[in-house]
């Protein structure tokens, strides 16, 4: 069963990166990462999948029982809109306190329930977005550059949180990231995008592909190795970023 798929999807909207005949599919439970340079259409592709953009050609197919949890790249809440964390979780549908608490626990933000969204740090904000996204118990979690603006320990911690969420819910995860070294090794499959799909496969296969090397240079190969080295030992300092 495929959760969601794109079939020969093309986008040529003014002001948006172009996508040419992109096809791919996501199966239940897998972690797929989209990498690519700036302006390669990564966010455009995610926004196609959630229905925010209609393609000029091609088809997006959603399985009838797909439940999407979406974590946007950034969310600018107008300073004039008062919004507590708990209230934010009630969007778009009200949820019981028990469910809200459970989601906050999974995302590690239980202590923030009564804080204003505007008072959160970058890392806290992203985890609140994650808590909201998992409230509907999604079987597909979509994250768009979710660690932008976080420092390295912060984003590493955030990815660990996502891994926990996936084990909890058994959901598929589709994410866009520029942090190759972190996401690559955590993914089942990597899609390298640059207006079209350049290459696709397991992290090892993709990072060895000439098309990928051309986009990111061979330097990233070292970063990948560095990451693996990093994770031989355990990080147990759980800061609140």
């Amino acid at each position, binding site marked *: 069963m495929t959760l969601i798929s794109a079939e020969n999807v093309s986008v040529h909207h003014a002001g948006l990166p172009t996508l040419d005949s992109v096809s791919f599919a996501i199966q239940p439970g897998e972690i797929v990462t989209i990498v690519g340079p700036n302006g390669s259409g990564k966010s455009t592709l995610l926004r196609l999948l959630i229905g925010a953009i209609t393609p000029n050609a091609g088809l997006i197919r959603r399985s009838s029982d797909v439940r999407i949890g979406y974590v946007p790249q950034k*969310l600018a809440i*107008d300073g004039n809109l008062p919004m507590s964390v708990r209230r934010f979780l009630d969007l*778009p549908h*009200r949820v019981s306190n028990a469910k809200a608490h459970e989601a906050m626990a999974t995302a590690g933000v239980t202590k923030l329930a009564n804080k204003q969204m505007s008072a959160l740090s970058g890392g806290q904000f992203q985890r609140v977005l994650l808590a909201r996204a998992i409230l509907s118990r999604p079987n597909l979690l979509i994250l768009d550059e979710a660690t932008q603006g976080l420092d390295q320990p912060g984003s590493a911690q955030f990815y660990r949180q996502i891994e926990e969420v996936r084990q909890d819910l058994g959901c598929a995860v589709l994410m866009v990231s520029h942090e190759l070294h972190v996401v690559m090794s955590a993914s089942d499959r990597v899609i390298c995008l640059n207006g079209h799909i350049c290459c696709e496969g397991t992290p090892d296969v993709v990072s060895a592909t000439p098309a990928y090397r051309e986009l990111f240079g061979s330097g990233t190969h070292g970063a990948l190795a560095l990451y693996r080295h990093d994770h031989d030992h355990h990080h147990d300092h759980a800061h609140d970023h």
Partner: protein
Amino acid sequence: MLDDFLVRAALAACGTATAAALLGCFVVWRRMAYFGDATAHAAVLGVAISLAFSMSILVGVTAVALGMAVLIHLLSRQGQPVDTLLGVLSHGALAIGLVAVSLIPGQRIDVESYLFGDVLSVSRLDVAVIWAGAALVIAIIWRQWSSLLTATLSPDLAYAAGINPRREQLILTLLLAVVVAVAIKVVGALLITALLIIPAATARGLTRTPEAMALVSVAFGILSAFGGLRLAIVFDTPVGPSIVCLSVFLFSLATISRQFRTTGK
């Protein structure tokens, strides 16, 4: 009771203030103040057209305000800056409306009452229309509250939840036209935006959730409406501007008291 012009004026002002203060929260959250101005100014053109074709003012104003609202909606395609264009439309509609009114042959009409309102002359029918409009605004915002709020927060979050943010924006834009149509008799075209944004801005510093802000905003709106009417009677000043003056005064009080509270901590 409705025979008393003061009672009618109070009811009209209260209805207008309630609808405007409620919708005004979204105007503030979405930074739509310019939309409000453009729609309100277009109402003057609506007055001119109504007089020229001897239609009911309400019909003319509503039609032109709706037309302007839809035009703005179409122009504001995602991500494109429209404030300059809105300025052109807004003041263009106002100027053309003023010129058109002066060109209408026969009776010399009192433009001022449409620019600054004339709530003391509202009829029973006006009161009924104002409250029908206000009830419509309240009912639609009540029903759409969660969708409107989600779309206001982030269009992409709305899409992901199966809500079309363009539709929600259109709803707000149309409601803006309704508020303009009911408010023109009360505060006039030039001060409608004040009725929209000042109560909401006053409520902002005092509340922690969107619902609380909406309720407190409505409370400030109604307080300004009644208080402003009272002030106007006592000091023999125009009602619309008096309502806005009191509204600004309350805003200042709330802002100053907030400053004291935050610096006191």
